[in-house]
């Protein structure tokens, strides 16, 4: 009589069983942390994070303002506004970290109110490409500061499509889009209207599909400050060099 209940084959299969269990454990544990079960969960996660981000952004700009005043005070305390502070302010302004005012143009783009069901509904919407083209034309026309619905365009700003909205910086914007650009208003207007892509939005698209697209010169315009963070992780300045 063979008294052992373990046979070599049984032992091998039990090892395989343990392996399988461990593999499925690995997979599910990664899954649970990475993916909430339902789309609705995901949506609420996104909402939560967005409101968190909004709070943090507010706090960030608050702190930045505080820092500005402290710096200014410190400079005034020491009697002179050092050239350092002035330089800092100048750099900050050109980087888009402070709100600026000046003359320029205001452009309003909006989706069409009525959609002809026979046509492609996409033709009746303002797309990220339209926005990019207009913004690009404005920069080409010498715009010094641009914001879209209060989102300042800085050197790292992406403009991309995110479902039914357009993502600028990390804010989701919906129609209508108000673009404020500071610069020589005449040059800005003519560049916006003559750019091969942007002119389509103001011309044929507007008349054909009923998109809203208007451009107006404004004497005194305010362009918002960039509210996101600007902390490069990969880029570092070249040692000692300006250029």
């Amino acid at each position, binding site marked *: 009589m063979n008294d052992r209940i*373990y046979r070599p084959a*049984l032992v091998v299969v*039990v090892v395989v069983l343990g392996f399988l269990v461990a593999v499925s*454990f690995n997979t599910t544990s*990664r899954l649970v942390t990475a993916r909430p079960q339902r789309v609705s969960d995901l949506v609420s996660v996104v909402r939560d994070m967005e409101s968190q981000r909004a709070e943090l952004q507010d706090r960030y700009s608050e702190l930045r303002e505080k820092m500005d005043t402290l710096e200014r005070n410190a400079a005034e305390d020491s009697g002179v506004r050092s050239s350092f502070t002035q330089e800092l302010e100048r750099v900050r302004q050109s980087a888009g970290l402070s709100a600026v005012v000046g003359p320029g143009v205001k452009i309003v783009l909006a989706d069409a109110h009525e959609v002809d069901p026979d046509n492609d509904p996409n033709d009746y919407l303002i797309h990220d490409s339209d926005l990019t083209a207009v913004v690009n034309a404005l920069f080409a026309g010498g715009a010094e500061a641009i914001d879209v619905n209060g989102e300042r365009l800085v050197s790292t700003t992406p403009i991309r499509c995110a479902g039914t909205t357009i993502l600028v910086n990390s804010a989701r914007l919906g129609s209508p889009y108000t673009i404020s650009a500071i610069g020589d208003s005449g040059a800005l207007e003519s560049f916006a209207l003559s750019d091969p892509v942007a002119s389509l939005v103001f011309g044929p698209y507007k008349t054909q599909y009923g998109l809203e697209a208007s451009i107006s010169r404004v004497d005194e315009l305010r362009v918002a400050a960039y509210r996101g963070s600007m902390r490069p992780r990969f880029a570092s300045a070249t040692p000692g060099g300006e250029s």
Partner: protein
Amino acid sequence: MLVLALALALGVTLGLLTSITVPVALLTYLGVAVLAAIDSCLGGMRAALEQTFDDKAFVFGFFTNTLMAAFIVFIGDRIGVRELYLAAVVAFGMRVFDNLGQVRRGLFQRWGWER
């Protein structure tokens, strides 16, 4: 008994150390395969206790069970009845408990806890 427990621990440790994962889409297959493997192991223990253990039948049974389980899931995916895997889960689940009862009885007899 101890040897089997050690073997299980060895398998789990190997799996955790290598930290292999499978694509999410294949998770159902893996789950059903695990269930089939549990069933096979319990069946094997039961056969060993009843002195009817046969290496060939056991190994062959293990692979056919596992592959058939995976096949049922696959068919379910293909014909649009995702829930077909439940059939395999229920069948194997029942067998697992059935075998477990037999193994328990067999072990109790061996250890002289019963009668």
